[in-house]
């Protein structure tokens, strides 16, 4: 289920580029022109240009643009520091804040007719999740070395046969739940909006869902970031 009208796809088709009609294309060029890819680039360009245009040079007395960014960045910094401490927050701020901004904008962009949320494709969310999953193990290994395996062993040795599978399953469940939650929520929102538009768009039927959509978008971005922060700080903690 796609949006009825996606303006980037239409422009690309007018330019003669192949736009896939299924979820993913067959050739490389078709895959590049898939809607979730083009809208990912749109979000990237949006974030880059907006921060470029509003920030300019930093001043002691902030103007409108700088004020906004100071609020956003300051709020996120406080949030990270609360949850994982000053040192780690400084180290991983660029990565997690980029995730937060990207996911929030990507979720919200789908509310505008003619746009589509890149996060309503499992490919995008799985890519984000894989980055988080691998980097939290990497943090664990860098912090504890080979003793990182103790995280999966439980508190006492005779519980190992019981706890090792449980720990491994719950670690793999992170991969599944983190990606499918974001994908499922946003896809549901998009599909619901599209159907309501088709059924009763003239009577403003999608409006209540749009209000809910704003809430869902913000909350899902927040969930993703909060869980990322929690996983990172857990990987650095000492085992039981």
């Amino acid at each position, binding site marked *: 289920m796609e949006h009825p009208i996606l303006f980037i796809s239409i422009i690309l088709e007018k330019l003669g580029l192949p736009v896939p009609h299924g979820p993913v294309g067959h050739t490389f060029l078709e895959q590049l022109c898939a809607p979730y890819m083009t809208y990912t680039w749109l979000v990237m360009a949006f974030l880059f240009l907006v921060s470029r245009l509003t920030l300019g040079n930093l001043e002691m007395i902030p103007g409108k643009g700088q004020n906004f960014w100071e609020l956003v960045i300051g709020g996120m910094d406080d949030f990270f520091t609360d949850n994982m401490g000053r040192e780690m927050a400084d180290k991983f701020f660029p990565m997690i804040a980029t995730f937060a901004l990207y996911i929030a904008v990507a979720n919200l962009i789908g509310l505008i007719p003619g746009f589509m949320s890149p996060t309503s494709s499992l490919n995008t969310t799985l890519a984000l999740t894989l980055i988080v999953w691998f980097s939290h193990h990497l943090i664990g290994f860098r912090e504890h070395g080979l003793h990182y395996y103790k995280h999966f062993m439980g508190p006492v040795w005779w519980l190992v046969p019981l706890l090792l599978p449980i720990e491994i399953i*719950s670690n*793999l*469940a*992170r991969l*599944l739940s983190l990606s499918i939650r974001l994908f499922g929520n946003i896809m549901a929102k998009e599909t619901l909006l599209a159907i309501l538009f088709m059924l009763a768009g003239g009577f403003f039927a999608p409006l209540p869902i749009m209000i809910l959509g704003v809430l869902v978008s913000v*909350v899902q971005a*927040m*969930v993703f970031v*909060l869980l990322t922060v929690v996983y990172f700080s857990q990987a650095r903690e000492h085992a039981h």
Partner: protein
Amino acid sequence: MSDVKKEFVQLLANYGHIGFTFVAAIVIGMGGGIYLDQKVFDGRTSPWFTFIGLAFGIAAGYKALFEVIWRDRKAEEKKAREKKDHEG
């Protein structure tokens, strides 16, 4: 955002993912069990590994649930300690 709204969103983020994580753990546990039964042992051990995997999956789901509670308790204790330090 006002403080109440912020807290609301934070609470939603904190607890909203429990249901999904629970299901994901059970799916992975049971899926692994079925894979062992059908692919690795060619159905000779069926249905034992499926049940064992299901049990481990459910246990992992509960573990994820308790982790959220423990994390909460730790955060509350930390907050209480800080408050005490502040007053004392």
